[in-house]
C-alpha cells in the first residue's frame, strides 16, 4: 500500500513557480528525506502534504486517499516544526492533549496516550512544565511526543534538529532512527544537511529550485548521482570534478590527468551514451575516498590506476588525512592514510578506482552512464 504519493504537484505564487512538478512515491513504513539548499521548496512541499497551503495543480494521496481537498486535521498526519511550535501557555501535558481533546478522545484514553508517549520519549518528569521551562532538546522531544500521540498515517518533520547544538543533534538523530525502526512509522523528513539525509533516509529526494533532481536510496545517490548537482551535494568532502577530454582506446575510455606531466588514465569499457563525447570535454567525477594512497586502496580491481601528484596542503581528520593536489588546474582532494599523506611540496602516488569514476556532460550536467 502506498503511504504517500505525490503526482505532478506544482505550486506558484502569482508568476513565481516554487514547485515545478514533483513526483514522489513511498511505501508504508518508509523514511523519506527531502533535502536541498535553502529556498528550494522543501518546506513548501511539506506544507502542501500537510494541507497548510493549497497546491496549484497535481494530486497528493495519503494512504491511498486523495487529500487535495481535505483540511490538515482530516489528513491523518502529524507535524514536527523547526521552531517546535509548542503552545507557550500550556503545560507539556496539555500540549499533547490539545489535539486529542479537539478530536474528542475520551479523557481516560487521553491519559493513557500521554503516559505511553511520555514513556516512549522518556519525558515523564516534564509533563507538568511549561515550554519556557524546557531546554531546546526537551522542547524537541515534546514536539515529537505531540506528534506521536496522534498515531497518524504519516509524520512530517520540518528540519526538526536544526536548532539543536551539534552533539544533541547527533543524539536526537539516532533517537529518531530508533523510534522509526521500533514504531514502523512512515516519515517525511525535511533537512538541508546531507549527512542527516544519508544517515536517516531510506529514500532521499534531492531538490533544487523546485524540482526533484534525483529520487532514490542513499546508496544510489552516493554511487550513481544523476547529475553534477546531486554528485556535489551528497558526500563530504564532496566529489572532485576534474575537467578533461574523453578519449577512446580499444573500446576503453581514457582521460588525461595532468599534474606537472600528462598521465593517461583508462576508465573502463566505454558506453553507448559516452561514445558521442569522445574527443569532447567531459567532467570526471571522483570521490576523495576513491582517490587514495595505493596501500589503502581496497579494491583488487586489476585496472587500478596510479597517478603521481604534488601535495599542496594536508588536512588531518584523525582516521585519514585529506590531501589536496592540483589536477588539470582544479583543486582535487584525496583521502589518504595519515602515514601516506606526505607533506606539502612532496610528490605522492594516488590510486584511482576506475570502476567508481563517473563522467558528466559539462553542458547538460547529466551523468554519462
Amino acid at each position, binding site marked *: 500500500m502506498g503511504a504517500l504519493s505525490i503526482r505532478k504537484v506544482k505550486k506558484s505564487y502569482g508568476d513565481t513557480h516554487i514547485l515545478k512538478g514533483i513526483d514522489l512515491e513511498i511505501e508504508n513504513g518508509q523514511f523519506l528525506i527531502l533535502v536541498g539548499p535553502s529556498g528550494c521548496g522543501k518546506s513548501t512541499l511539506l506544507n502542501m502534504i500537510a494541507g497548510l497551503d493549497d497546491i496549484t495543480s497535481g494530486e497528493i494521496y495519503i494512504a491511498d486517499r486523495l487529500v487535495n481537498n481535505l483540511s490538515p486535521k482530516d489528513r491523518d498526519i502529524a507535524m514536527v*516544526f523547526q521552531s517546535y511550535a509548542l503552545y507557550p501557555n500550556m503545560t507539556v501535558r496539555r500540549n499533547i492533549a490539545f489535539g486529542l481533546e479537539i478530536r474528542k478522545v475520551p479523557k481516560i484514553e487521553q491519559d493513557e496516550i500521554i503516559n505511553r508517549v511520555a514513556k516512549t520519549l522518556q519525558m515523564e518528569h516534564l509533563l507538568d512544565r511549561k515550554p519556557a521551562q524546557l531546554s531546546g532538546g526537551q522542547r524537541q522531544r515534546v514536539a515529537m511526543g505531540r506528534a506521536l500521540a496522534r498515531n497518524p498515517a504519516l509524520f512530517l518533520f520540518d528540519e526538526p534538529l536544526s536548532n539543536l547544538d551539534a552533539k544533541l543533534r547527533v543524539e536526537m538523530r539516532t533517537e529518531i532512527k530508533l523510534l522509526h525502526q521500533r514504531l514502523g512509522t512512515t516519515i517525511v523528513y525535511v533537512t538541508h544537511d546531507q549527512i542527516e539525509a544519508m544517515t536517516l533516509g531510506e529514500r532521499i529526494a534531492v531538490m533544487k529550485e523546485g524540482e526533484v533532481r534525483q529520487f532514490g536510496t542513499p546508496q544510489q545517490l552516493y554511487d550513481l548521482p544523476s547529475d553534477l548537482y546531486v554528485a556535489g551535494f551528497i558526500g563530504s568532502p564532496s566529489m572532485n570534478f576534474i575537467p578533461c577530454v574523453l578519449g577512446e582506446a580499444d573500446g576503453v575510455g581514457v582521460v588525461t590527468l595532468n599534474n606537472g606531466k600528462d598521465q593517461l588514465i583508462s576508465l573502463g569499457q566505454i558506453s553507448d551514451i559516452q561514445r558521442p563525447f569522445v574527443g569532447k570535454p567531459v567532467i570526471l567525477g571522483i570521490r576523495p575516498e576513491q582517490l587514495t594512497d595505493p596501500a589503502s586502496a581496497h579494491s583488487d580491481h586489476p585496472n587500478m590506476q596510479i597517478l603521481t601528484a604534488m601535495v599542496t596542503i594536508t588536512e588531518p581528520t584523525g582516521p585519514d588525512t585529506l590531501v589536496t593536489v592540483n589536477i588539470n588546474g582544479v583543486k582535487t582532494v584525496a583521502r589518504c592514510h595519515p602515514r601516506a599523506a606526505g607533506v606539502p611540496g612532496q610528490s605522492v602516488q594516488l590510486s584511482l578506482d576506475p570502476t567508481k569514476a563517473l563522467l558528466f556532460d559539462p553542458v547538460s550536467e547529466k551523468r554519462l552512464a
Partner: protein
Amino acid sequence: MADSYRQTTQAKLARMGIYAMLFLLALWFLAPLYVMLTTSFKSLDDIRSGNLLSLPQSFSLDAWKTAWDSACTGVECGGMKSYFGNSLKMMIPAVLISTLLGSLNGYVLSMWRFKGSDAFFMALLIGTFLPFQVVILPMAQVLGMLGLENSTGRLVLVHVIYGLQFTTLFFRNYYVTVPSDLVKAARIDGAGFFLFFFKILLPISIPTIMVCLIWQTTQIWNDFLFGVVFSSGDGQPITVALNNLVNTSTGVKQYNVDMAAAIIAALPTLLVYIVGGKFFVRGLTAGAVKG
C-alpha cells in the same frame, strides 16, 4: 589601581548628577499635584490668607464632599458623582469592546492575511494620525443616521471606533512576532480560527492586553472633546462635568472644590498607572524578548 579608582569615583559623581537631575525633574512634575492636593484640603479662608505652596492650617474634607455630591455643574447641583458613574458606564464597555475587536483585527492582519490586508492595515495606521477634530463632523452625521439617542451609547460607539486603530496596531505588532508555525501546529491539531484565538493566542497576549486596557482607559476617561460634542445633559462624562463645575460662577470662586473635583476626575487614570504601569512597560517591550 589608582586609575580604576579614579574611574569609579568619576562614575559615581556622574551617577549622582543624574540622580540629582531626576529628583529635580520629579519635583517639578509633582508640584502641580502637590498644589492641587493641599488646596483641596484647605478652607476658603485658608486659601485666601496663605500662599500657594503652604500646607493647610486645618485639614478639612468639606471641599471633597461638596465636589462629590453638591457642587453645581451648570444648573444642576448634584456634584460629580453621577458623572463619575456616567464615565464608568461609558468607559468599561468601550475599553473592553475596543480591546477585544483590536485583538481579533490584529490576529487576522498578522496570521490570516488576505488580498489587500496590508493596504487595510495602512489605512488603519493613517487613522491613528487623525486628530479628534477631523473626525467630529462625519461622526456626528453617522450618529445622526443611526438615530442613536442615548449619550452613553453614542460615546461607547465613538470611542470604540476611534480606539480600534490603536488597539489593532498594538495587537498586530505583537502577533507578527508570534511564530506562524504555532498556527500551523494548531491547524493540524484541528483547532479552527476561534479556538486557536481563544485557547492559545489570547492567553499569551496578556502583556499586550494590559497595554490596550491602560491606553484605552486613559484615552477614553480623559476625553473631553467627544464627550462635549456627542453627549448631553445628565449623560455627560466627568470631564465635561468638571469643565462645567469650574466654569459655573455662583459668587466666590471655590478653588478647593475645583481642585477636589479635578483630582476625582483624574483618580481612575492615576490608579490605572500605579496598578498597571509595570505591565504597560513590559507589554510595550514584549515580543522583543519572546523566546
